[in-house]
């Protein structure tokens, strides 16, 4: 029961083929158009005016940020005060009268048929109000032919898979009763190591071919591929003649790269509070998509969407793993229906590591050929990766989309193992793919005796990254780099390296907003969109502020509730670029309605009136300025409202990607094997930055998550028992304050002329894609040895220093 919408398949398709498309509503063609001039390019570098045909109803074109009053400014987070004071109410904080606490019973073995589930002792336990045995487990791949498995209960495919759940009056009672549920297993052979799972005689995770759908955040894998044993794939993509292009090369470099499984580890776990009433199911969910939760609950229980309400006031991190209702959502709803009481079901930390997603591993053989001048001739990638009992380990995005080439050949394979299903995680597949690609590009530069920036200038045609590389070239950090590797003589060696990132412009057309003007002069904006920490609520307030001239803090932002106009699911960096044009259009239309309504009372013509700095002013000077609030008092109704939805991008012929260049400075202790990232320079673009402060926060976060992935994090599975040995936060190592480098973020405004706000997204492109390879290249610069494996622990570093990997024979 995976979520499938047009939006999701769009994201998934893009993940897989790198092509760019956008939903095109049929009515778009009928709309009357006007021609406008829009700023396009990078101010100070490539800015110029370009013409666009846009619907006549579109608001006036915004100039570049420095000419705006509120949008584009580092406005304080709209809900910052609520968050720093503890007032912000997250799903984990929701307490309803009579609410029960639910706890999952999880499989203790990695692979088994469930013979029986005896709930009698649990049901009798004091305080227990309901027990639910799961008949349909969500997440992971699903057999193409369900007839291959005739079972009473879902087959356990990983330790930690939920089997049942108990609801009780206290968390303690629920936990204790859950321990009394007796599950009888018929164990099956299992495999938790990807290399072993690829072997011909490996235990099979699925008895036949199985597929996993993507979510609004991406992930999932292709359906139309073969499956042999546990290997789902290859998914092959070809362009040009790879053999010929490599023959025509002056230099070929190749490498074998391995990356580990990373868990999302959002601080607020997955979970819901579900309140089933006869005519309405209300669910508070820690989700990146209120819409996706409603869709899944409505489908699962076969109830109308109009009778499902999903609320996300605040949510404590998702990073791609929180879409749909999932097992917690449907089980809590089922228990609420059964007990007649609201149910809180929040996962514990161990469950969060095991059962609700992870970034798949990768094992990549990458080969790149080039001419003497650095022009890339061909890229060949064969990758294997495991998303546990799910799919979505493809990582060819960077190889496909960063450089121009004469030929490309990629083969992506998913390998099933008995572990929890992967999920989209911040730029799915891209940190893995870029780790290999961008180190190989640097290796090519070494082989061709070229500067790594010159080489990229030769083969990367993206106009904005060209500007970004120029900024890097001129930076003190890059200038401090010694082009000679391993130049330091002491035991601690310094190095500097760079890498590039790429992400794509996805538009969710399911984006709409309503703007209301009240007679007392207060303003309100509503959308079902959820703020996952990236700050969309702040940006909505800024847009109204820009339109009405009222400070953003005075605007009421109502978000995270499916009772409001439809909002996008927040995955794939879609939120800001999809929703803000709808908000702006609604604000514009509401302001025009407002001026038309009050003009007679002000003895003015509506088109002579403008809203500036909290006042209604006359363009011709015929009337004196009136405060917005006083003017609102003259409204003929209590409220004036306008609702707008996203219209397609203005110029959809353009292939649009975003990205950036990240530079890392490292110190490598060659005696202890420790890598310390000292400084990072992060140069990134995201269309019009709606709020530079919020963008910089996201880039800091991308850098930190990327450093953590590259140096520390590692999900460890015990091959003998098939259990995760580090399912908490003291053993699953995540970079913290002491590992934080000095991060210098430089935002590049890159106008693209695509919508009334011209915003883009930053979540995925923000450093997390490129910092791993930048560290790898910096380490090479420091010690002259290339490390092709994450996490780069001291043991890995010392082993690499002892025995540098040989150049791959596939070169």
């Amino acid at each position, binding site marked *: 029961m995976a979520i499938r919408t047009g939006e999701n398949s769009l994201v998934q398709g893009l993940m897989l083929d790198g092509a760019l498309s956008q939903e095109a509503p049929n009515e778009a063609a009928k709309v009357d158009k006007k021609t406008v001039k829009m700023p396009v390019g990078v101010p100070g570098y490539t800015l110029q005016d370009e013409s666009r045909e846009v619907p006549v109803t579109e608001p006036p074109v915004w100039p570049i940020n420095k000419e705006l009053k509120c949008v584009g400014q580092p406005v304080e987070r709209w809900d*910052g*005060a609520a968050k*720093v004071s503890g*007032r*912000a109410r*997250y799903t984990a904080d929701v307490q309803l009268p009579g609410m029960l606490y639910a706890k999952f019973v999880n499989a203790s073995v990695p692979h088994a048929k469930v013979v029986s589930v005896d709930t009698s002792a649990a049901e009798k336990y004091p305080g227990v109000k309901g027990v639910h045995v799961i008949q349909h487990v969500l997440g992971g791949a699903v057999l193409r032919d369900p007839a291959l498995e005739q079972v009473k209960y879902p087959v356990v495919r990983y330790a930690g898979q939920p089997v049942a759940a108990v609801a009780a009056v206290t968390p303690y009672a629920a936990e204790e009763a859950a321990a009394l549920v007796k599950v009888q297993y018929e164990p099956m052979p299992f495999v938790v190591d990807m290399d072993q799972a690829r072997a011909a005689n490996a235990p099979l995770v699925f008895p036949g071919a199985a597929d996993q759908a993507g979510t609004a955040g991406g992930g999932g894998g292709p359906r139309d591929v073969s499956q042999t044993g546990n290997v789902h794939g290859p998914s092959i993509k070809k362009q040009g003649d790879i053999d010929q292009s490599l023959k025509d090369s002056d230099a070929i470099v190749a490498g074998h790269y391995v990356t580990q499984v990373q868990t999302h580890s959002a601080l607020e776990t997955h979970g819901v509070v579900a309140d089933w009433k006869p005519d309405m199911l209300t669910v508070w969910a820690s989700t990146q998509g209120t819409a996706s939760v409603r869709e899944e609950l409505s489908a699962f229980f076969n109830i109308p969407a109009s009778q499902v309400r999903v609320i996300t006031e605040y949510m404590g991190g998702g990073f791609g793993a929180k879409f749909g209702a999932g097992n917690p959502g449907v089980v809590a709803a089922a228990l609420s229906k059964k007990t007649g009481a609201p149910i809180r079901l929040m996962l514990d930390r161990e469950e969060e590591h095991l059962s609700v997603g992870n970034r798949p591993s990768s094992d990549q053989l990458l080969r790149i050929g080039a001419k003497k001048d650095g022009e890339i001739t061909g890229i060949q990638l064969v990758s294997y990766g495991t998303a546990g009992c799910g799919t979505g380990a493809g990582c060819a995005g960077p190889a496909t989309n960063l450089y121009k080439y004469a030929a490309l050949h990629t083969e992506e394979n998913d390998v099933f193992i008995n572990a929890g299903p992967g999920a989209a995680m911040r730029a799915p597949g891209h940190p893995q793919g870029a780790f290999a690609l961008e180190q190989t590009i640097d290796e090519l530069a070494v082989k061709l005796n070229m500067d790594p920036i010159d080489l990229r200038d030769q083969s990367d045609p993206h106009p904005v990254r060209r500007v970004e590389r120029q900024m890097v070239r001129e930076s003190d950090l890059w200038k401090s780099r010694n082009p000679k590797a391993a130049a330091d003589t002491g035991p601690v060696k310094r190095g500097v390296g760079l890498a590039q990132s790429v992400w794509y412009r996805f538009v969710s057309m399911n984006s709409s907003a309503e703007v209301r003007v009240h007679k007392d002069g207060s303003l309100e904006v509503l959308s079902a969109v959820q703020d996952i*920490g990236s700050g969309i609520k702040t940006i909505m307030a800024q847009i109204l502020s820009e339109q009405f001239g009222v400070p953003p803090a005075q605007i009421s932002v109502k978000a995270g509730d499916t009772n409001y106009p439809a909002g996008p699911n927040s995955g794939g960096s879609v939120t800001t670029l999809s929703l803000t044009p709808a908000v702006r259009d609604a604000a514009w239309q509401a302001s025009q309605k407002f001026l038309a309504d009050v003009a007679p009372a002000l003895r003015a013509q509506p088109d002579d009136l403008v809203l500036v700095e909290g006042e209604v002013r006359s363009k011709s000077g015929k009337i004196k300025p009136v405060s917005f609030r006083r003017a609102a008092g003259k409204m003929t109704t209590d409220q004036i409202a306008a609702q707008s939805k996203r219209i397609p991008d203005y110029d959809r012929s353009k292939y649009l990607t975003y990205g950036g260049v990240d530079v890392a400075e490292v110190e490598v202790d060659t005696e202890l094997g420790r890598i310390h990232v000292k400084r990072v320079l992060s140069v990134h673009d995201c269309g019009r930055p709606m709020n530079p402060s919020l963008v910089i926060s996201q880039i800091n976060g991308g850098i930190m998550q990327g450093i953590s992935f590259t140096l520390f994090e590692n999900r460890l599975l015990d091959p003998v028992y098939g259990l995760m040995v580090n399912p908490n*936060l003291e053993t699953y190592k995540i970079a913290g304050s002491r590992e*934080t480098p000095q991060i210098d973020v430089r935002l590049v405004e890159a106008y693209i002329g695509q919508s009334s706000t011209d915003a883009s997204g930053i979540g995925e492109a923000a450093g997390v894609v490129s910092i791993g390879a930048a560290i790898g290249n910096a380490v090479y610069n420091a010690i002259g040895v290339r490390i092709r494996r994450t996490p780069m622990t001291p043991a890995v570093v010392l082993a690499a220093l002892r025995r540098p990997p040989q150049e791959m024979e596939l070169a």
Partner: protein
Amino acid sequence: MSAHKTPHPSLPSPKEEDQPEEQATGDLVRNGITRRGFLKGAGLTAAGTALLDGVHAFNAEAAPVANHGVTVLGPGPVQVQLNVNGKEHSIQIEPRTTLAEALRIQLGMTGTKIVCDRGSCSGCTVWLDKMPVNSCTVLAIDAIGHHVTTIEGLSTEGALHPLQVAFVKHDALQCGFCTPGMVMSCAALLEANPKPTEQDVRYAIAGNLCRCGTYPRIFAATLEVASSSKV
């Protein structure tokens, strides 16, 4: 495993009257009931007359049962008094209830977050007499007789603490789930050391996990308050 977070290296010695007794014994002593003593038994074990001082905190119905000189509380609920943010609260809890659970469930103060529930992320940081502790690894009964300060109590009369203002100004938060713990850790640092260096801030929040990775701005916010402080 002590619930207390690693004391900051530059923490000055607390004043005599503020010094928690724990400093002297290496174990948390509250009203004569030791944590070690508690952990020896299945319930709350208290032996000897020296411990009777602590009993006043429990009300009469839930009074300890004397049995062969051993006083046992629980495992059923007991009525206790907690001083939280300067106010006395009387709540009924099972003795095994952690301070974090008592705050969130019994008192409805959900600003304090539970993230790992085992003292490895500091998301649940509150103050016990101005000492930052992981409230998920402090029993609520261990907080009896102490002044508990939570994120809700840091702001006074609706006015944000200067550090909270600085957190907003520097956008030292994203999803905000680690934020209450971060603020409590950084504010505790400033109480103990009004002029910390960036290195001091890094160490003070070395145990505070932020998955959004917003650390650089937490350093900036804390240092700004430090530089503007009049101490």
